[in-house]
């Protein structure tokens, strides 16, 4: 695989292109043409597709997209481009086992395929969602880690330092990022899992300086930094700088792509192709150990709409059938804690992802738009679902997901946000309220009764 140094050189020397031309002349036109050429069409009846040929065509289209448009660097207004040989070499690269964590929590990230009987990796977190105090953060992470199915965590983000709202770019952001990290590590120690890997420890960080500052306080070679592209197919100096540091540090990278359905990626078909193309961007430019996508609806801001489910499903299949860089899917649901809807949405996207060959990170709730509207129950439930659907046929999963959509789809524009963490869980001991236990129990039972899902392990909440 070509070196990161070469990538940086290309960021500084590549062909000059204006931002607008990259978006409208290159990216949009190319992906549309490829969608036609490769006959990629969205089918609302199969939010979980079972079409291997479609998956492979999406992969091919994604590769062609990557080769034709490259990656845009706004700081230099140039494109990083790659040759076909370089892409093929990268895909042939023998990466070796992808390992995270230390001690008893050291594990290998599985390279799964559609309908794979191997359990997926379950990373738990709030999707970077915001909490109002460090003690909320500490409590949440401790609860994530209590889940034996949790194999890594991401931290929520802090909004305040000592009562003061964090201002991005200011020293409060640095301090917030350091606290994020320090409290995250302490929470794992308190949970008795100090070796559990943290794969996004500085969710409070907006800038590379804070990212690096925070990482210096707790990210080691067995952890990862989450580093993202910008929509679409763009990587700026800030992200590249984080990569440069992380590589020197010896930590790994979860390469994040928040592909926006309805943005420059267009509709579902073209969004799927872009998501597949990102696998190569994540491999070559962000030097990821995982691809960490969340195809999100631009208006509803969730990953649980029918079309985003389809995108996730086909993209996971495309990638897992053709690439060594595995997918750690991130999800965002519309409804919030203590609502049944949040759990139905969770079940839908997790099922779609896992049967399509992916692993998961769960998850932002209440559209990630409300401070403290999160709890450990939804991620816990996500991990239960993930294990329950392992080995399920895609055709069966499709029926499950469609039935779930029937329950919640119409309510997405006005999803109930639920209650705050402190209103449904005791922050000291992690106990959830009886009301939430009842909701959770009901939905869990329904999963078995209505959809035939067998939960492999007893629940810590029942």
């Amino acid at each position, binding site marked *: 695989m070509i070196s990161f140094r070469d990538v940086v050189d290309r960021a500084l020397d590549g062909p000059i292109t204006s931002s607008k031309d990259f*978006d*409208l002349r290159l990216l*949009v036109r190319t992906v549309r043409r490829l969608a036609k050429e490769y006959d990629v069409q969205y089918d609302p009846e199969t939010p979980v597709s079972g079409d291997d040929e479609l998956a492979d065509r999406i992969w091919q289209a994604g590769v062609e997209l990557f080769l034709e448009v490259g990656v845009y660097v706004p700081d230099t207004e140039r494109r990083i481009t790659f040759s076909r040989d370089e892409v093929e070499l990268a895909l042939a690269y023998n990466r070796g086992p992808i390992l995270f964590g230390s001690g008893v929590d050291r594990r290998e990230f599985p390279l799964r395929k559609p309908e794979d009987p191997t359990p997926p990796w379950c990373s738990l977190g709030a999707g970077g969602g*915001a909490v109002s105090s460090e003690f909320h953060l500490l409590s949440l992470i401790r609860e994530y880690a209590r889940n034996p199915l949790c194999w890594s965590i991401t931290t929520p*983000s802090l*909004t305040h330092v000592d009562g003061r*709202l*964090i*201002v*991005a*770019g200011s020293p409060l*952001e640095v301090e*917030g990022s350091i606290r994020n990290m320090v409290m995250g590590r302490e929470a794992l120690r308190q949970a008795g899992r100090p070796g559990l890997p943290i794969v996004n420890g500085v969710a*409070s960080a*907006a*800038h590379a300086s804070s990212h690096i500052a925070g990482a210096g306080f707790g990210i080691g070679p067995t952890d990862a930094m989450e580093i993202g592209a*910008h*929509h679409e197919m763009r990587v*700026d100096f800030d992200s590249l700088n984080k990569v440069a540091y992380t590589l020197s540090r010896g930590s790994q990278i979860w390469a994040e792509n928040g592909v*926006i*359905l*309805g*943005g*420059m990626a*267009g*509709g579902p078909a073209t969004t799927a192709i872009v998501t597949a193309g990102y696998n190569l961007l994540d491999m070559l430019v962000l030097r990821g150990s995982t691809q960490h996508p969340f195809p999100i609806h*631009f*208006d509803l*801001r969730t990953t649980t709409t029918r079309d985003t489910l389809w995108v996730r499903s086909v993209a996971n299949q495309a990638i897992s059938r053709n690439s060594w860089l595995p997918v750690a899917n991130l999800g965002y649901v519309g409804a919030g804690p203590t609502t049944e809807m949040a759990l139905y949405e969770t079940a839908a996207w997790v099922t779609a992802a896992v049967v399509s060959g992916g692993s998961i990170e769960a998850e932002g709730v209440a559209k*990630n*738009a*409300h*401070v403290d509207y999160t709890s450990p129950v939804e991620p816990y439930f996500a991990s239960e679902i993930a294990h329950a659907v392992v080995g399920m046929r895609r055709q069966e999963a499709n029926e499950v997901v469609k039935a779930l959509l029937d329950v919640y789809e119409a309510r997405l524009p006005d999803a109930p946000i639920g209650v705050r963490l402190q209103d449904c869980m005791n922050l000291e001991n992690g106990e959830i309220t009886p009301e939430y236990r009842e909701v959770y129990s009901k939905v869990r039972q329904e999963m078995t009764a209505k959809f035939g899902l067998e939960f492999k392990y007893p629940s810590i909440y029942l």
Partner: protein
Amino acid sequence: MAHKDDILQQIMEAFTEGEFDEIQPLVQQGLDAGLDPDGILDNGLIPGIREVGERFRRSEVYLPEMMMAADAWQEGMELLEPLISEQGGKAEPVGRVVLGAVKGDIHSLGKNIVATMLGTAGFEVLDLGVDVRASKFIDEAEGFKADIIALSALMTTTMPQQRDVVEHLLARGSRDKYYVMVGGGPTTAEWAQEMGADAFGETAADAVNLALAHVEGET
């Protein structure tokens, strides 16, 4: 040469079919065929772009279509505006908006959608881009003679910069000159009230409706 009415129809179809490169040539064709510039605008460009806007609202088309339609509109107007001015008319905007993502925030998508939709709704929009400091919003609003300052923030840690703009306006004694709207992922109506904004738009469509209501004197 195509019949005059056909040309107007073709302009409409070019918008709806996504053949945006054809719009400027069609406008030229219309002029060559003797169509009145005002007529091309009122019966060709305006209905065409409105239709794209409606389809966008219904999620039948997406941002790329909106932006390409807006570009095509602009290209068409480059031909029509001089002629309309000559005839004594002037396509006046319904209002002027200065818009941008606040300091520290580099997210542009939502802002771009709002800018495009405001443009298609008849506003003249000055898009300052991303990472815009407070004083720049105000300096540019003054120069542009804006009615509205629209502030986008996609992170909880950039939201305080929205408040900073209001504080800068107060410091300058200019608060009452502008209608301040805020929006973006973590922003809420409560936040808008707390920080002293005039309005909060949860979606791009909300933003446009609020802006229209303001210029029409309903706020």
